[in-house]
């Protein structure tokens, strides 16, 4: 792999935003394909996700890595668009009403961007109505709901129920610490993932199947 791409992956893993920005600029100036820069970013973030799951790093380290990735994306996104690599799929994402915890949601969001999804982030404490309005406005391929608290699991259920009445039907994926595959099935979600990397795989699979 090219040296600046190696440096980019290393910078993301370490959460060094200045290094990430410099390595991205160097890679783009050297004329490397923007897709290869995106792949280097994703590789770094995947590693962060794996170490987080294994409890070798903690939330603050994940957040600084996500920030470093965002710095790189700021430079990369215009180049991706200019070179015709436009997002093929789009996703509306948010934490459910009553839940203000967005670390997991933000991590999934960064990974989706890394996989070249267009992400419409509705933020935290999002009502069923706000999700429905965003679906009507952006016509995404998927909606992703996140919840951290067992207190907000009923809100996730009622949002899925409301969104399931939308025509044409929209696919919904769910995740968050207290969510289980059984709960996802029971509330009528189209998919569940336990971590950010598998959320991307799930989103890709559901979007590809819909085509």
């Amino acid at each position, binding site marked *: 792999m090219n040296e600046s791409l190696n440096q980019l992956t290393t910078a993301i893993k370490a959460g060094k*935003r200045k290094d990430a920005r410099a390595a991205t600029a160097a890679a783009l100036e050297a004329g490397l394909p923007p897709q290869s820069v995106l792949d280097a970013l994703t590789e770094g973030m995947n590693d962060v996700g794996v170490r987080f799951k294994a*409890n070798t790093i903690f*939330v*603050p380290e994940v957040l*600084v890595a996500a920030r470093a990735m965002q710095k790189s994306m700021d430079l990369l996104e215009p180049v991706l668009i200019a070179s015709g690599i436009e997002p093929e799929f789009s996703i509306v994402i948010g934490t459910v009403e*009553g839940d203000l915890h967005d670390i997991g949601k933000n991590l999934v969001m960064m990974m989706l961007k890394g996989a070249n999804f267009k992400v419409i982030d509705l933020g*935290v404490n999002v009502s069923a109505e706000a999700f429905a309005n965003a679906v009507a406005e952006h016509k995404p391929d998927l909606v992703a709901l996140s919840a951290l*608290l*067992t207190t907000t699991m009923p809100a996730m259920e009622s949002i899925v129920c409301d969104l399931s009445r939308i025509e044409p039907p929209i696919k919904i994926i769910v995740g968050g610490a*207290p969510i289980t595959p059984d709960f996802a099935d029971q509330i009528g979600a189209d998919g569940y993932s336990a971590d950010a990397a598998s959320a991307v795989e799930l989103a890709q699979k559901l979007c590809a199947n819909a085509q």
Partner: protein
Amino acid sequence: MSQNTKYALLACDVFKEELTTFGGETPPWHRIEYLEMGLHDQPDNLRSEVQAAIARLEVDPAIETVLLAYGLCGNGLLGVHAIRCPLILPRAHDCISILLGGTAPHNEILKENPGTYFYSPGWVRGKRVPGPDREAHIREVYSARYPDDDEMVDDLVEADAETFAHHSCAAYVDLTQNADAETYCKDCAKHLGWQFRRLQGDATMLQDLLNRNWDDTRYLTVPPGHSIALNNQSELVSEPS
């Protein structure tokens, strides 16, 4: 189970103040074991720690029942089971529901302000709550890990604070009249620029657990060989292991 049932109490360390007060000089439990607070951060880890502690307690032939001073705790209690003894636990989201006397007041407070962060004497003792001590602790941990990188340490301290960025209220729940912990919570609120709120706790749920008033509406009984589970209505139930 009779009023003389000999039980062991397996409790989160966060309840130490309340249980010490309610237990008094002749506590109603035969044995008590505390597990460290905060295990719910990794629900799988909480589950295995609770499971291992139940196995240790069940070895004691004098123990007839194991009480769990735990709620769902991020679903960390799901799947927990015992081989010989019935398990009994409150129907609660977590320690906060238990200190407030049930899930209904807990849900109501969060509905009113989802940005509520709960403090209790145990959480204050653990210094895990948002506030100046937590910041100092995070700085110390990361300064040791990145001794030559002050910028990275600053970034990590800032990132930790960011995890509470959407919160706006430090709500103190106390069943033991702990003035020092209440003052500490007020200081944290001031430091963070949050509103302070004192919540009226309700000791009934914890006291009834200790006093064997285990009615089915407020407590789940899990027979030996069954596991803690959730049904389709997200209610705690037991199911065959």
